[in-house]
C-alpha cells in the first residue's frame, strides 16, 4: 500500500519541528551571558537535506553560530572580568523571529498536505459509489 504523500509530509514535519526547537533554544538563550574566558552561547542552525531515496527531507546536520559573541561592558555583572567585560551571544533576534515564522508556517503547510492527502485517498475510495 502506498501512502507516500503522508510519509513525505511526515519527514518534513519532523524537520520543521527540529527547526522550531533550535529557534526556541536560540531565543531562550539570547540573554545568556558568559565570562570572557568562555565561548559565547552558539546559536544553532539546522541544515535540511533531501532524502537520498527521493522521498522527503531530513536534517543533515546542525551548524553553530559565532563562539566569539559580542563583548559588553558591564562591570557590575558577577561574571565580568577585571576590565568589566562579559560575553553575550551573537544572535540576531529579527533573524530568529523570521526563522520562527517560517518554521511554523512550514509545519502548518505540511500538516495541510497530510490532511489533503488523506482526503484524496478517501475520495479515491468513494469512486463509483452512487450515493
Amino acid at each position, binding site marked *: 500500500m502506498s501512502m507516500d504523500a*503522508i510519509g513525505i509530509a511526515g519527514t518534513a514535519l519532523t524537520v520543521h519541528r527540529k527547526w522550531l526547537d533550535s529557534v526556541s533554544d536560540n531565543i531562550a538563550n539570547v540573554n545568556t551571558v558568559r565570562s570572557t574566558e568562555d565561548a559565547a552561547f552558539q546559536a544553532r542552525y539546522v541544515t535540511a537535506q533531501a532524502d537520498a531515496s527521493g522521498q522527503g527531507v531530513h536534517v543533515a546536520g546542525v551548524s553553530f553560530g559565532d563562539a566569539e559573541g559580542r563583548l559588553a561592558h558591564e562591570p557590575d555583572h558577577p561574571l565580568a572580568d577585571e576590565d568589566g567585560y562579559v560575553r553575550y551571544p551573537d544572535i540576531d533576534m529579527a533573524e530568529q523571529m523570521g526563522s520562527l515564522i517560517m518554521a511554523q508556517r512550514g509545519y502548518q503547510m505540511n500538516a495541510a498536505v*497530510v490532511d489533503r492527502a488523506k482526503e484524496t485517498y*478517501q475520495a479515491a475510495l468513494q469512486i463509483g459509489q452512487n450515493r
Partner: protein
Amino acid sequence: MIEAIMPPAGVSGVAGAGYVTGAQGAGTPGLGLRPAQAPEGAFAATLGSAMDEVQSLQSTSRELGVQALTGDLTDMHEATLASSRASVALEMVSTVRNRGVEAFNEIMRMQA
C-alpha cells in the same frame, strides 16, 4: 412432467462465447456449466494479507498513542500520522471487502 430441458427448436449449434470455460453448445442436452477454474481462495488470501497490514498499522498507531500519553513521544505528529494512516488503510480494506461482497450478491441474484 418435464424430464429434461430441451433446446428451443429454432436454436442449434450455438457455441459458448469463450468467456465461461466448460460451457457447452446449446445442442447438447442438459446444462453443461461448470465453474471456471479460479485459483483457490485468491480473494480471501489477498484480503487476509491486506488485513494483516492494517493490523500492523493499527498496532503502530496504538503504540504511538500510548507513548504520547506517557510522554515518551518525541514527535507529536508521528502519532496522529500513524492514526490517519491506519484509518485510511482500514477504510480501503473495508471498501474492497464491501465491493467484493456486493459483486458476489449481484451474481447470486442472477436467476430468472
